[in-house]
């Protein structure tokens, strides 16, 4: 391992690039802004690749650690590091940023510089969340990442964007403010440390553990989002521009789930065991009930948004089974969902850019005009439905296997809804793509161009690669997940 501060670069390259993009100013310089953004995003992706190639599979410890004093007054450190749980998300996020910049290339015409800068800055902040090992640093990134998404939804969003932007911001803030108090409580209890790793070792009695767990639960449940605090997500997705939806689904939703693994399980293991039933129940409601809700949607983006909530239900379910299979399955599901939901939202964006509608009823027979598009969309729809040999299958299958070990009926409930998942996705696909050309808007559709083709290929490689050969993804997780489970099994009550 060289001494290059890779994580610092992964965080700050996009942010600095974003500031430079902002400096290009008005839309007269739009081409320059786009090029500069692409360079920044690709550079941000390139610096994350050594995280994978240089990753030590044997150790569960944090790697690529950087530790500098930041605010000594409160013993807050600029403490970064990744383990098998977080490393893949840094790479995934940097990858998604590249696709987002490409996805907005010809579509975003107004305030191009601000649009791209927003995504680049957000990308850096999200990398900061995944690599922060200091509670306060984590929180700062966690909350700051709300600002760019708020602006992206509000400025480039649909007709009801203001409502969606406010709802998104205030909902998420509600959760994170209680989280802040939980962090401050841990800071005091641990005798003045903000280090998450110190907190993992901190003995806590059952009552504070329960309260902390609930505070964490509210913060992360809103982010995931879990039923019943999911209502902001469909609104945000429907109103957000395509790029915003991609980042929201592919990365932002993972923050909550990641928080469970970094905070809830290791810091409050006893409460996590005791309240696992609650989380499993909420997850099952998300999987089953939200699955049926998705079935009833007439707006494609809303449908995919609800399907995201259902898929994230598998993730939280996998975590709280407390088995290696469950947690790894959930992690695989998170990454897979990053590819699949990103691709789904991009596909809908491709249609929306041409026909300016997201209503299923406005389409029909798209395959006659856009055969290449239909083929790609088919792949992603299948992955969304969890077809074997796509990435969507691997994670859900692992979670269900783990659930069988845990409790048969939990597994049964989760598994049976894979049918619902297939139903809403494929039914939508059928209505939109197949059949005769429905109206003159569809008749005027043109197939995807080279830029869109490239983005689809990027997503497709991820979806199929992970589905056929998940080994490279799961092998980096083993040590960290096993260590986490060993840690969670120990009681912290003294």
């Amino acid at each position: 391992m060289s001494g290059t501060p890779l994580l610092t670069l992964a965080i700050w390259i996009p942010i600095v690039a974003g500031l430079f993009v902002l400096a290009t100013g008005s839309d007269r310089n739009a081409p320059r802004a786009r090029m500069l953004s692409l360079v920044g995003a690709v550079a941000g992706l390139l610096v994350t690749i050594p995280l994978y190639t240089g990753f030590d599979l044997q150790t569960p410890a944090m790697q690529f650690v950087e530790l500098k004093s930041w605010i000594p007054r409160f013993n807050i450190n600029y403490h970064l590091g990744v383990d098998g749980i977080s490393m893949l998300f840094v790479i995934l996020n940097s990858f998604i940023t590249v696709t987002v910049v490409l996805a907005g290339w010809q579509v975003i015409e107004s305030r191009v510089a601000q649009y791209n800068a927003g995504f680049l800055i957000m990308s850096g902040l999200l990398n900061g969340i995944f690599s922060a090992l200091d509670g306060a640093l984590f929180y700062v990134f966690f909350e700051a990442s709300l600002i760019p998404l708020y602006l992206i939804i509000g400025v480039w969003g649909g007709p009801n964007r203001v409502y969606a932007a406010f709802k998104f911001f205030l909902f998420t803030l509600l959760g994170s403010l209680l989280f802040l108090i939980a962090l401050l409580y841990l800071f005091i209890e641990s005798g003045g440390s903000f280090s998450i790793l110190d907190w993992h070792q901190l003995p806590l009695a059952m009552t504070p553990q329960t309260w902390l767990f609930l505070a964490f639960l509210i913060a992360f449940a809103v982010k995931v989002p879990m039923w019943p605090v999911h209502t902001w997500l469909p609104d945000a997705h429907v109103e957000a521009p395509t790029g915003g939806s991609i980042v929201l689904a592919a990365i932002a939703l993972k923050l909550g789930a990641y928080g469970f693994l970094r905070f809830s399980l290791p810091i409050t293991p006893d409460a996590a065991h005791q309240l696992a039933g609650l989380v499993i129940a909420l997850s099952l409601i998300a999987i089953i009930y939200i699955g049926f809700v998705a079935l009833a949607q007439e707006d494609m983006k809303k449908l995919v948004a609800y399907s995201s909530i259902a898929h994230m239900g598998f993730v939280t379910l996998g975590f709280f089974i407390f088995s290696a299979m469950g947690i790894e399955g959930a992690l695989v599901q998170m990454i897979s969902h990053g590819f699949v939901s990103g691709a789904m939202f991009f596909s809908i964006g491709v249609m929306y850019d041409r026909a300016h509608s997201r209503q299923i009823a406005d389409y029909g027979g798209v395959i006659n005009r856009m055969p290449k598009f239909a083929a790609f969309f088919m792949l992603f729809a299948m992955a969304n439905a969890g077809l074997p040999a796509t990435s969507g299958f691997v994670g859900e299958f692992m979670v269900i296997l783990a659930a069988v070990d845990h409790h048969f009926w939990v597994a049964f409930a989760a598994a049976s809804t894979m049918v619902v998942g297939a139903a809403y996705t494929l039914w939508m696909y059928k209505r939109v793509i197949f059949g005769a050309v429905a109206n003159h808007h569809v008749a005027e559709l043109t197939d995807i161009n080279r830029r869109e083709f490239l983005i689809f290929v990027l997503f497709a490689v991820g979806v199929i690669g992970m589905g056929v050969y998940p080994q490279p993804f799961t092998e980096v997780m083993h040590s960290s997940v096993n260590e986490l489970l060993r840690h969670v099994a120990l009681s912290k009550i003294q």
Partner: protein
Amino acid sequence: MTLAEMQFQMPDLRLASAEIFMLIMASFILLLDLLVKDRKRTLTFFATQATLVGTALVTFATTSGDVGYTFSNMYVGDLFSDLLKLLLYLTVIVVLFYSRAYILEREQMARGEYYTLALFATLGMMVMISANHFLTIYLGLELLSLSLYAMVAMNRDSVPATEAAMKYFVLGALASGLLLYGMSMIYGATGTLEISAVAERLYLGQADRTILIFGLVFLVSGIAFKLGVVPFHMWIPDVYHGAPTAVTLFIATAPKLAAFAIVIRMLVSGLIVLAKDWQAMLILLAVLSMAIGNIAAIGQTNLKRMLAYSAISHMGFMLLGLVTGVVGGDGRFALNAYSSAMFYVVTYVLTSAGTFGMILLLARGGLESDALDDFKGLNKRSPWFAGLMMMMMFSMAGIPFFVGFFAKFSVLQAVVAAGYLWLAIVAVFFSLIGCYYYLRVVKLMYFDEPLNTMPIQAPADMKILLSVNGLAVALLGIFPQTLMSLCAFSLLHSL
């Protein structure tokens, strides 16, 4: 005391040299202005600014690490006062730069008196900051208040301004009365008005508790008036709204520093033995202020009025730092808590100056632009200033990476450290509500179309200063350590 001991002692003037310099210069500028023929009062303006810089140099030069008393212990010079005074001069300098273009466009305000009054108000605040005697506090406070009443009324043909001045005067006089009444009770109970002597007598338990608590109620009410916290807040929205924006800017910034100083002097230095009692009172005021300030701000359509309610809620939040200093007679947390509150006030003043500066930036051609709708589509008119305003709004809302976050963070950690978890939850709950109206300003600037597309015209010095102010909000949000430790250090060496 025998006659032989009662000899005249020359007070140590060195400790008060900044005040003396300020007084001489303010009087001199008052005379100088008679000779200035220039309608723009350029000479007066620059003489005023030079005076402030000069006073800062004097303060800086006379700073020593020690606590020094002078004028028969009525006056104190310590690191706390020096730091606050330096911040005060800086604030006033910035405020005067921001207001210059605004007052030049108003016939009745474009006079030399504006600057002289500002200097006298500053002198009053300096006296408040350095007071070690209840009467000294009162003197400084009156000097400040009388100057401010006149400044609010300066635009004398404006009905809202005169109304605001009247309200301010009547309520301010009432508050001064309350404060004096409280002081007289303290005197009755302890036989002295010298703050350190009061503390000593209280410590020795030589005072009648009933009278003390009675006096304390009046003192706290008076302070609450000056800070503008609920239920003594009624003047804040009217005065902020009615006063000319340049004066609102002045009222909304510098006096908060001085008010904080007298709170520390009176309650902490003087009456710390009664901490349990005044903390209980302040908790009530803090919660009420956060509630009413944040909720009432949502309904406002005028930015000045909205910021007035926001100021109420911010002062309430700041009080949280003061109520957590002593827990069950244990003063371990005191330094942590009070320095958090100090950091909060200082950063609030910084952000508030920038926000009102932004209203002044948009106000042109003798027209105000203090309605929220005037900020519509600012991002189209000037992305740079919209960005700065956005940073200040997010800072006020307490979102990182802006300094307001660390202000809230440090106060909250003091609250949690003191074991008041419920208070922390109440505080974050109301800041969530508060977030809504700051977000609304961002929404107006970014999501909406502009009502007028006039490019922003303002003097270059103002634009630069405002930019520096906005960037400071961001930079201090990333590197808050220096200012935090300065606050803690100055308090450590003064209390």
